């Protein structure tokens, strides 16, 4: 009989990440990567006190964790699956560890940082 796949674990994280990316990333990239660096809006938007204040509250901590960690899972899952699309069929376990490991690291590190802030 066919063996049950563990794919639902990473697929759930991929799906949650995809939703977060679709609903936040265009705005986040515009603000942090274009509008503030080019001076289209006031530099106060990303001032240290403001961001430190955000990371101080529980809602802010959760928000920062969500916008960093879940997109990484989304990205890792897609890139891992794309390897096969491009004919890279060997080393599946190795690549799983590399990509999902990176996403796990990108979840635990901000979690650790945010709890300490």
């Amino acid at each position, binding site marked *: 009989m066919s063996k049950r796949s563990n794919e639902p674990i990473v697929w759930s994280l991929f799906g949650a990440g995809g939703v977060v990316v679709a609903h936040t990333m265009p705005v986040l990239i515009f603000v942090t990567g274009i509008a503030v660096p080019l001076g289209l809006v006031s530099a106060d938007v990303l001032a240290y006190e403001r*961001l430190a204040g955000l990371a101080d509250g529980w809602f802010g901590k959760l928000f920062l964790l969500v916008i960093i960690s879940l997109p990484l899972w989304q990205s890792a899952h*897609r890139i891992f699956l794309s390897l096969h699309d491009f004919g890279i069929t060997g080393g599946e376990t190795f690549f799983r560890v590399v990509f999902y490991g990176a996403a796990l690291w990108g979840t635990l590190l901000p979690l650790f940082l945010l709890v300490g802030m």
Partner: protein
Amino acid sequence: MSTRKPYVRPMAGWWLKNPVYVRYILRESTAVFVGIYAVILLVGLLRLSSGEAAWNNWLIAMQSPGAILFHVVAMGAAVYHSVTWFSVAPKVMPPLMFNGEKVPVAKIVAGQYIFAGIIYLVLLGLILWG
């Protein structure tokens, strides 16, 4: 004796052979920009946790021409991700029922655009004036 000799065609370069496949690979490629941007945010969080001077260095790094160019491309990728995400979502969600009738796919997609538009505006408002 069987003279069967089925010929299996190679898959090499398959994704260039049909515009649908090219758009699919383009959609999947947005993940590279999403991943890099998430790492940039993660580095920002690291800097933020190290104090004001480190955070300001991150802000200065974001002003380099290379960083701006990356973010312009990444924003395009993020928008493409959003558009493709909303268009396939009705295939993943169970059919939406209203008064015993299936809601048409076009209406579900339009509804997602309206919802996402509201989220974008709220998010932008909170970031700029919150």
